[in-house]
């Protein structure tokens, strides 16, 4: 535990990539395999389950202390992190330290923390306090974060993989592949992960690491004829695997989501073994020439077994854009032009040999006409009318790489929608934005000269603007509701967003997709901000 807490502190204190990789290498090179496996599990952000809620920990900390609940709230608003607040307060209220606990990370993860979580009432409170008493402050913070399942180290998976690659001598891509489909903490699993490469290590369910596109910043190199253009649909990325007479559907978040999409599993069942497709999962009504909005897809996500009604209302389709494996052969090093040709052939053949409705749910992502760069911008302008978020540009010669590697694949989104809205409420952020008002709620004018809450946005301002706005909020607060401040409705912001949906859950009747701040309109008086009517008009023009 000591070593892991030190690693956490080292990662927390270093800002450079190199320093972080060095800290990871130093940790993993000397660590016991079982501890290392748990550390990796946590670093990869896979410690999903919360053992004890932050609220319960806070209760345990405050019991037997003179500190009232409201003071905890004040502290939390200042610190912006529940586990850290408890750690700092425990130093204040905790009865003297007992014998330091010196257990391995494995023992903490497998015994001590689950045991404390399994208890109830005063027994649990005493057990947790007993653990707290035996820990140094840095260990205490890590233990609390492990208990509440919220240990985010701020290290991307790519960095961890880079460190493990350096340590093991394996290729990063190979490690990525071995990590796909989950890593169960255990000494044997870590040893297997870092074992030298050998030929036969395919597990039928294992997906390939996804290759991710980067936002287009300038016109790509070479003539337009070296590139292929497709719509960028607003669904979820999926990898459909047909191997060993089974079918697996993975999301980009490396979760098996087949259960939520039984019709896609049935569709893939029509493919020959040893086929792996990369594509987009969408809700696509039969006969329609475009997919349904994302909100429809959202109704399908997370449903273990969707009912017949939902399946009928929100029918899914898989729009394939790449072929990663055919006949059991890994095609990823072949150029995209070849993979695409093979994909077209595969789906053509399927429609001829198996012309069933099930097989018809595997659709081919259409190629858009792009022979000269002048065509790019007009195409992008048409994205909204095709119910797409924008364009994808892929180099015809590109291999299928792992992770976000720039140069071969670009995403080129259409311009967001915008509305000018008035700042109504502000709340302090968390983490490095603790004690700064950074969570904003904005309103639009209704027909009666009242402002109605419309959207929340947290991002888009730079540090200087955040500081200036924070100062403004503090001196223009009109009312306080706990941590939330109502402010005088004077400041106008241009909000950018991806779309609008009707919603009965929102006061304005509208749900906003991906709202963020585009600009602080200090030039604009609040009276000139947009109205709910203009938002509704925009909603009506959306596909």
């Amino acid at each position, binding site marked *: 535990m000591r070593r892991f807490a030190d690693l956490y502190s080292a990662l927390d204190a270093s*800002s450079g990539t190199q320093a972080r990789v060095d800290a990871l290498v130093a940790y993993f090179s000397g660590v016991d395999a079982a501890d290392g496996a748990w550390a990796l599990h946590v670093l990869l952000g896979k410690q999903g389950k919360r053992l004890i809620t932050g609220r319960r920990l806070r209760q345990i900390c405050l019991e037997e202390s003179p500190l009232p609940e409201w003071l905890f709230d004040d502290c939390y608003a*200042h*610190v912006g992190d529940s586990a850290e607040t408890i750690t*700092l307060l425990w130093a*204040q209220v905790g009865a003297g330290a007992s014998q330091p606990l010196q257990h391995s990370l494995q023992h903490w993860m497998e015994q001590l923390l689950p045991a404390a979580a399994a208890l109830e009432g005063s027994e649990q409170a005493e057990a947790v306090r007993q653990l707290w008493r035996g820990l140094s402050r840095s260990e205490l913070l890590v233990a609390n974060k492990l208990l509440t399942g919220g240990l985010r180290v701020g290290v991307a998976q790519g960095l961890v993989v880079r460190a493990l690659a350096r340590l093991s001598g394996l290729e990063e891509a190979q490690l990525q592949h071995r990590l796909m489909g989950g890593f169960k903490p255990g000494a044997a699993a870590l040893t297997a992960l870092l074992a030298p490469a050998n030929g036969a290590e395919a597990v039928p369910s294992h997906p390939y690491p996804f290759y991710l596109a980067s936002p287009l910043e300038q016109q790509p190199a070479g003539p337009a004829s070296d590139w292929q253009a497709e719509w960028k649909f607003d669904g979820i990325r999926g990898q459909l695997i047909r191997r060993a007479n089974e079918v697996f559907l993975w999301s980009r978040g490396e979760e098996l989501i087949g259960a939520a999409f039984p019709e896609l599993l049935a569709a893939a069942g029509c493919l020959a073994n040893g086929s792996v497709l990369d594509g987009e999962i969408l809700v696509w009504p039969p006969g329609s020439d475009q997919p349904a909005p994302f909100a429809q897809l959202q109704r399908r996500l997370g449903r273990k077994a969707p009912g017949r009604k939902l399946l009928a209302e929100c029918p899914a389709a898989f729009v394939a854009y790449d072929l990663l494996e055919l006949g059991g052969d890994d095609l990823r090093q072949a150029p995209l032009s070849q993979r695409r040709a093979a994909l077209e052939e595969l789906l053509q053949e399927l429609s001829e040999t198996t012309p069933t409705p099930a097989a018809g749910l595997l659709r081919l992502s259409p190629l858009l006409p792009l022979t000269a760069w002048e065509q790019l911008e007009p195409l992008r302008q048409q994205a909204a009318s095709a119910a797409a978020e924008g364009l994808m540009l892929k180099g015809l010669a590109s291999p299928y790489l792992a992770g976000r590697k720039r140069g071969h694949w670009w995403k080129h989104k259409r311009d967001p929608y915008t509305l000018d809205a008035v700042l109504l409420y502000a709340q302090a952020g968390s983490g490095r934005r*603790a*004690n700064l008002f950074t969570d904003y709620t904005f309103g639009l004018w209704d027909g009666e000269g009242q402002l109605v809450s419309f959207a929340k946005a947290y991002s888009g301002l730079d540090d200087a603007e955040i500081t200036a706005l924070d100062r403004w909020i503090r001196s223009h607060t009109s009312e306080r509701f706990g941590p939330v401040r109502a402010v005088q409705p004077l400041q106008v912001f241009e909000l950018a967003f991806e779309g609008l949906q009707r919603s009965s859950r929102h006061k304005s009747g509208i749900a906003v997709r991906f709202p963020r701040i585009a600009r602080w309109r200090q030039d604009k008086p609040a009276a000139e901000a947009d109205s709910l009517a203009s938002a509704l008009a925009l909603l009506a023009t959306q596909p």
Partner: protein
Amino acid sequence: MPLPTGSLLEHTPQGLYCRAAAAWIDPVGPVPRALITHAHADHARPGCGEYWAVGASEAILRQRLGATINLIPVDYGAAHRIGEARVSFHSAGHVLGSAQIRLEAGGESWLVSGDYKRCADPSCSPFEPVQADVFITEATFGLPIYRWQSGAEVAGEILSWWQGAPERPSILFAYAFGKAQRLLAELAAIGVGEPGQPGAEGNEILLHGAVEALMPAYREAGVRLPPTLPVSAIAKGESLAGRLVIAPPSAHRSVWMKRFKLPQAAFVSGWMAVRGARRRRGYERGFVMSDHADWPGLIQSVQQSCARQVYVTHGNSDGLARYLSEVEGISAEPLAG
């Protein structure tokens, strides 16, 4: 809330005013007579007709406000009659020459804490508990998440941070007056600067000009300090690897830092207790050392004042006042202005 009318102290646009003494305490602008708690720039401002302050702060006040100011130096604990009031200055333990100011007139006594701290500091005299009917306390760190370690513990952490990077310069950012000298004194107290120890002659701790300017006053006051040199005394091009440097926070990421190759940087402040505060300021490392009272220090001082009424100002004044009245049963109000 404002002070009740007719009180010994009242609010004016220039700050807290005592009618009986015809004097302002730490006025924000020029007034005929100023009683100064300490020489930090937000408490001692130029242009007043007459300054009353503790003798130990005289050199720094003259340096900052002008050599020719009309300053009446006083000793800790000595009572003075100013106008109708009896006024005394008592050690606040904040920085060299810092004071709490006690005023008494018409059968009522008030104590204004100024800035203060309760933990030991080898660079200034310790806080003196004083009783009064009404106590005005600061609350810069008025949340129970703040609880300080001793200066010696923090100095130990700093020493191992510094010694752990012999190939890089180590820059500590700290307020130039008070914190920087306390750091030096805390380091001296654990042996830094003695022959054969880190920071000895030939490997002196280096100071930014703003810190250097305050050193004569501390050396004259007899504070035990390690040997130091201004950074400017080191020849251009000479390696600064392994040297400890102390600079004010304003120098962080300024052109001044160009001089140092691959420095490790840390900020020394009570605010560093919270990770978010450190990350927001962009420091890799923070050392938690403050010249203000922590939560237990604030509560203890309020209790020891035996005041029947407490006013809380600066920082989390609402929260501390509410805690004092709800939990400790002491009549307390946040003080506006």
